[in-house]
């Protein structure tokens, strides 16, 4: 008799938790379809009485949401592509190629993980200014072109590649680059998918650095644009919910589609990190 009661309790708690967790996102979606002003009433309406796409129309037509989305996609894609290449090359070399100072350099890199990125931000801004990259896509992209975390993730995975396989290829006279392309990259594929998703989502969601370096509105990424719009339209809840949906849905969909890889990355990054 005790078991059924416990089962009901556990599952009720799980359902209550799920409702509380999902509610903000569901309400955001619902309110984004309400006509302007409809959400400013008491009690707060759960569902739109007369659903409309006006807020989305206004976001795209008057507030350039399409442009910001394009900026975000461009920056996130560039950072993902470049950092994936650089991190994979380095991560593989730290795992499988021998060179002088390898262990010391790797340990120094890991040690650097304790330094928060914000410590570098002010000189980074001066540097990016010197390079003429303030308020360009390049300015947002350059600091993300390689990450210690990415190198670490690839290295841990690459350690499991059997040395015999690489030696055999070397015996056959394959160059190191050739071995990398035709043997290593295919073997690393799962971790590369994981790293690509983690990087893309992190770059898409990033806020502080783009906020600092992008001074022209037409280059804003979605989070920067949304933060700026939300200060202008404090009372315009329905419009802001549409803006939030536009910002969140692409990453949420990507996550749902690739969930397995994403979670594998978190576990690999935290257990040994």
């Amino acid at each position: 008799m005790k078991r059924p009661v416990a089962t009901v309790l556990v599952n009720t708690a799980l359902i209550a938790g799920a409702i509380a967790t999902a509610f903000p996102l569901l309400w955001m979606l619902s309110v984004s379809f309400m006509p302007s002003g409809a959400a400013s009433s008491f009690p707060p309406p759960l569902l739109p009485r007369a659903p409309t796409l006006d807020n989305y129309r206004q976001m795209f037509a008057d507030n350039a949401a399409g442009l910001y989305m394009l900026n975000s996609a461009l920056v996130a894609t560039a950072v993902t592509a470049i950092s994936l290449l650089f991190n994979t090359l380095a991560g593989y070399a730290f795992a499988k190629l021998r060179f002088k100072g390898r262990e010391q350099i790797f340990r120094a890199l890991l040690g650097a993980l304790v330094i928060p990125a914000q410590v570098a931000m002010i000189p980074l801004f001066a540097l990016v200014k010197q390079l003429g990259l303030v308020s360009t896509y390049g300015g947002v992209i350059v600091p993300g072109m390689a990450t210690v975390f990415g190198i670490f993730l690839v290295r841990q995975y690459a350690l499991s590649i059997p040395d015999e396989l690489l030696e055999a290829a070397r015996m056959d006279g394959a160059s190191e680059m050739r071995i990398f392309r035709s043997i290593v990259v295919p073997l690393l594929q799962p971790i590369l998918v994981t790293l690509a998703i983690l990087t893309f989502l992190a770059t898409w969601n990033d806020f502080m650095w783009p906020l600092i370096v992008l001074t022209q509105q037409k280059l804003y990424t979605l989070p920067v644009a949304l933060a700026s719009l939300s200060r202008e339209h404090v009372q315009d809840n329905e419009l802001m919910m549409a803006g939030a949906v536009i910002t969140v849905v692409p990453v949420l969909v990507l996550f749902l589609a690739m969930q397995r890889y994403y979670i594998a990355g978190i576990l690999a990054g935290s257990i040994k990190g």
Partner: protein
Amino acid sequence: MRRFDRAAWIFVAPALIVLAVFFFLPVLAALLISLTDFDLYALADFSNLRFVGLKNYGQLLTEPLFWKSLWNTFYFVLLGVPLSIGTSLGAALLVNSKLARWRSLFRTVYFAPVVTTLVAVAVVWRYIFHTRYGFLNYTLGLVGIDPIDWMGDPHWAMPAIVILAVWKNFGYNMIILLAALQNIPEDLYEAARIDGASSWQLFRHVTLPGLAPVLLLVSILTMTGYFQLFAEPYVMTEGGPLQSTLSVLYFMFEEGFKWWSLGRASAVAFLLFVLMFAVTVLQLRLGRREGAA
């Protein structure tokens, strides 16, 4: 061996150059800049730069607003970290329970906020916290609690940000704790059950010790993350009301990119780093001693 060496360097060079130029160099430069009066004029022409020694640090330590931001950040960390980890642990235990149905569905729902864009969900929560039309006050009203002016009352603004942070982040640690729970050998539970242990005793003497190392790791990761509070107050409260949600990083941002006192801002960044480092070491020490006892 030599050819090998050269190939290896070609592989690591791009990443190391990027990290050196865009991370290590700026970190060192930050330390130097924090000893100068780096400002808008120096940004235009480096010859305007003057060395001022520890003046920036001295000024900060006598600046009430800096202390205020430090206290606010500590308040956020002290309130937010235990609540986050408690929620994560509760969620992980529930999802891991043998009695639970649709586990992977719940896991996905609980994790979803982690991948959302902080700025976007901060905008959503600002609306949920709305004094008159927000859903939270409506719900509280149903159980007879008077409306709270979440964003306008200096006593409630930071707790509101903590609620957002817990909601946004608990799924991350939940995933890590779930993996750790599944690593605790079933035999340990069996043995304890045969000895007649109650559910609470199982939790206290098998589950918690099994989770201890991971809990320590998770609390350090969460804490260092929470010290970097910035986007939530930027979007929800602009540091107000009455600077009650001005965090150290927000203070740095304003010093640096609103007033262009880049020297002082660098000093702020360094002090925050030293602080985070000290608290991490302290936590590791305490954790080790707990583990030894």
